[in-house]
């Protein structure tokens, strides 16, 4: 049902690794380490600044892909992969977008399972990719029928 959007991309959106949001996010995963939140510790560190936790890119805006409308309920998160060239620096600007990498179907014991693989990118101001995030989302037969597609 999503085969036609394979390869489609969203437009790049500017995001800022915002200090207050990094703090709130770190707290919510029980990881208020000084490297994330203490400015002096950040300055003294090898990165010269505070950094963000590796799963932080969930909070960024990646824009919308035309023709890709997912339900907000019932999706199963199957797999998640991050790749980093370096940690994200607090205060930096990143340009983020998303791409449909793959879509496939498998017959399972509860009917047809659909797998949607999306890949998100975060680039620095010069256009270097700093991180990527790949997610596999599983759409079960029940959810697919509710979508009426």
């Amino acid at each position, binding site marked *: 049902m999503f085969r036609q959007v394979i390869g489609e991309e969203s437009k790049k959106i500017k995001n800022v690794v915002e200090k207050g*949001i990094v703090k*709130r*996010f770190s*707290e*919510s*995963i*029980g*990881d208020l*380490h000084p*490297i*994330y939140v203490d400015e002096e510790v950040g300055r003294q*560190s*090898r*990165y010269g600044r505070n*950094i963000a*936790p*590796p*799963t932080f890119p*969930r*909070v960024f805006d990646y824009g919308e892909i035309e023709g890709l409308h997912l339900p*907000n*309920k*019932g999706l*199963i*998160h*199957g*797999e*998640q*992969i*991050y*790749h*980093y*060239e*370096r*940690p994200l620096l607090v205060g930096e600007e990143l340009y983020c977008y998303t791409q449909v990498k793959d879509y496939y179907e498998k017959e399972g014991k509860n009917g047809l399972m659909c797998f949607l693989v999306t890949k998100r990118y975060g680039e620095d101001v010069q256009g270097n990719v700093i991180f990527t995030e790949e997610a596999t989302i599983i759409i079960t037969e029940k959810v697919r029928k509710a979508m009426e597609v």
Partner: protein
Amino acid sequence: MSKLVELQTGDRLEQITLSPVSRMDLIKYAGSSLDFNPIHTVDEEAAKAGLPGIIAHGMWTMGNLAKLFTPYYEEGFIQDYQIRFAGMVFLNDTVTLQAEVTDRASDNLLFDVKAVNQHDKSVIKGSIKFKLLKDE
């Protein structure tokens, strides 16, 4: 705390057992991640989805698991972090975070990582490649 670079294949990081999962944990994560899927916070919505109760965001558990490595950022950083969501985490579950070295090279360490519940069942599992940075 020993240095990561001194670890050998088969060595484990000191595991962390989290406090039992509370509703407030999940409300806070929903707010910070902007993932407001109601199966994580609203009992009725979880029941409607056929679940025995609200479940933790998989990404909450994945976020927690990474903190085993947070003390080591002066040695390097998590370059690759791959996770498969293998089971659900319910309210009051006690999750333990684990990492074991599976391979090492001159500039990186590979770990098997997982989070297990109080029944010793993996709820998420995967691998981390920790890139070692040279001292300047």
